[in-house]
């Protein structure tokens, strides 16, 4: 009903009002249902409930046990999911098996790696996935891992990372080092509910752990960089309206900065613009420092601002305070 009524040509204002009411109530119901689901599943995985169930199991008679058993699949599913989540939160990189549905593939069993990155607002970004396949090189006995598919943003060169850490052709690294690394990796993932899928024939010179570590570092650094830019934009009051000049100058942002944004998606370079026409650009390192800065005013390079930006370790977070100190 409300779908049809939603059209704007509905003439009766009263009807429209009722429609909006219905819509908002439906939304409310949905919200509450959502919340209920979250709460029930959270409740199922609580430790108290588990211990309670366990103690009940020991004490109760046989008939009551069956009713408890009905409940147990739910609790086991919930608790296994919780521990998966704990691994994802704590380690950030977990592995899982995946089966390639393609009938023509020679490597149907893929090793999936999931990387979780926590963003500034306390939420997790969409997980990143890499799927690795095992392939036998020419004249080799052991199988080696190769990147099959991934969801890493294009500015991080998975190809180059793969070339360095998962070389497909024969390398010259020492065997023992990477082997011990690998076993560590197995421990991390294996203790979790996520099973390691077919990591057996891993080539000796390949260092999966380092590959994942570097990749994750790069992803985290990217998120940190864009979060830092976002944080400074927030501080400058540039988030909501796009640089209303009079307002920005007087109330929210006494530095007179009207533009502060990353030049591209990877948030490596940040462009700053003042309302009096001064502009600047700086490079942000993976560790959150300003690596290089160029600021221009009417007469050319503005060394004072550049010094201020680079001073004191050049932390991005305190950039505005340093700029304030010179203005």
């Amino acid at each position, binding site marked *: 009903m409300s779908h049809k009524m939603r059209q704007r040509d509905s003439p009766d204002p009263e009807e429209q009002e009722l429609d909006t009411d219905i819509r908002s109530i439906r939304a409310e119901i949905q919200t509450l249902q959502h919340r209920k689901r979250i709460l029930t599943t959270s409740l199922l995985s609580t430790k108290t409930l588990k211990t309670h169930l366990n103690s009940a199991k020991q004490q109760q008679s046989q008939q009551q046990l069956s009713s408890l058993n009905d409940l147990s699949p739910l609790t086991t599913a919930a608790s*296994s999911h919780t521990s998966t989540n704990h691994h994802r939160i704590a380690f950030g990189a977990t592995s899982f098996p995946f089966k390639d549905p393609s009938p023509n593939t020679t490597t149907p069993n893929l090793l999936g790696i999931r990387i979780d990155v926590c963003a500034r607002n306390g939420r997790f970004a969409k997980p990143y996935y890499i799927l690795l396949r095992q392939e036998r090189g020419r004249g080799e006995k052991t199988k080696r891992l190769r990147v099959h598919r991934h969801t890493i943003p294009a500015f991080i060169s998975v190809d180059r990372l793969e070339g360095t850490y998962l070389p497909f052709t024969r390398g010259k690294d020492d065997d023992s080092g990477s082997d011990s690394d690998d076993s560590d990796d197995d421990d991390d993932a294996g203790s979790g509910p996520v099973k390691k899928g077919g990591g057996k024939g891993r080539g000796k010179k390949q260092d999966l752990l380092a590959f994942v570590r570097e990749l994750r570092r790069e992803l985290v650094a990217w998120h940190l960089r864009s979060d830092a830019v976002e944080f400074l934009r927030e501080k400058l009051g540039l988030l909501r309206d796009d640089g209303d000049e009079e307002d920005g100058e007087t109330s929210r942002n006494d530095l007179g900065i009207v533009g502060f944004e990353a030049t591209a998606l990877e948030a490596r370079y940040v462009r700053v613009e003042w309302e009096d026409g001064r502009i600047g650009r700086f490079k942000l390192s993976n560790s959150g420092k300003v690596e290089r800065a160029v600021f221009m005013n009417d007469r050319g390079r503005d060394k004072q601002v550049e010094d201020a930006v680079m001073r004191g370790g050049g932390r991005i977070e305190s950039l505005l305070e340093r700029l304030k100190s010179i203005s």
Partner: protein
Amino acid sequence: MARLKTVRAPTTASLPNNLRIPSTTPALTKTLSKLSRPALLDLALIWLEDHNVKSSPPYLQPENAGDNDEETLPYPAAETIAEVRQAYIDLRDRKCGKREIIERILEGDWRHGISLRQLAMADLRYLDDRPASLRWTALELNRLDTKPKKKGEDTSISELDWSANIPRMQATSFVKALQSEIAPLVKAHYHLARSSTLPLTILRIFIIDSPYQTPRQQPEIFTDATRIIYIAFPDSCPYFYTSSITTSPAANASTTTGSIATDPRTLQRLVREAIPKALSRPHDRFTLKPTALAAKNLPTLLALRGPGRSTSSNGAFSIFADSALEGSPLDPRPSNTVSADEHMRGRDAAPMNEDKENADYPDASVKPVRSTKKRQSGSTTDGTLSPDSKKRRLAVESRFGTVGSSIAPAPLDRLDIRLLDTLNANSEEEADSDRNAATLTPAVSLTFSGSDVIGGIRKLAEMGVVDPERMPSWMTGEEAVSTAFIRAGKRVQVDG
């Protein structure tokens, strides 16, 4: 308004922005009438904006000119720019046809001609409105390793910047570099603009084979589509797209009568080859690599060769790109109990906006309509479908992931497949005629075309025409290409 007799000397400079094409050129009317009415009005107002008006000034009443024949014209010249602006704002509210607006532009306010820049803006506006109006080819920029890699360099690995594989581009300096690459060969006009609808920077290059600043060619040549190349640079990824050459054979024949260098095709190739050179810097060289993808739709290219997650996980793997499989680690619900739809939607808001406490609610408020719809459709199909077709639906879902569904649209308009299988590859009867069959590779080419090829194959699979379990993965769009050589169901690289 007779032009002063100027000395014409060949230069290497680019064609000036303010080079005017006489507004009597019929081709101009054609170009402008491709645009919609609101787009035309928008465009005229953009031309009149403060920072544009210098390069595209409208015709104003001369200060002390007597009103000789001005009055008799249908569009008397305005006195100030503000007046012209107001005229177009008024036109917006008034009911009048597109024709009238074009007439006003060409015979009234820009009667002295449309500048090259204005023409470029009109073309780009058209591109924004109709992202599927051109055919695009995606190319990859590959960094050339100038230093041969040595084994002793392991110490520096940690300092390597893995996210530095994209050429850094500063628009104006890139255009300058490109100009100096092309200039000795052809004369060109460059216009660089940001797409208003997509995360793209589009460079429009108009090429002409004349060394002179004010070419004496027919004015029609300025609207000749074969002389225009569009290059689109998506943000933060090592790809770029060029508009493909769409010459009709007749037009091609007429232009090739001249020397080879004047053929638009050659000119376009020159420009294309100059791009990696213009992006390169000392010790930082790039080359071009074809990516076997051409499509009509810019959003498709962005999805398949763009900065995002879906660039290298398509087909069955699109569930990862859209993260339709699992939720955030903070979600207490086991992931198999949550619909894929919800996984994908719930996350969109997550990394970017809103404070976390309230973020769930706007999401939830969007849900009712869609999820009930989904449930309804699911239940009706479930109710009527046999277990066989249910199994098929699951198979289709596992093969196609989210591709071809309405949630992640990346329509391919054409898919060319060349099968390289030899005849005796899998049939035993021909084992005895090995000596003949070994060389017998029939040339089998398949060409699919339509508005959404992969989506169509998915539909066929859902209807049971195509066996979803046995079909090769190129049919699911997993390879994300539009031309492929296939051997034994797998894509192979064929040189040449």
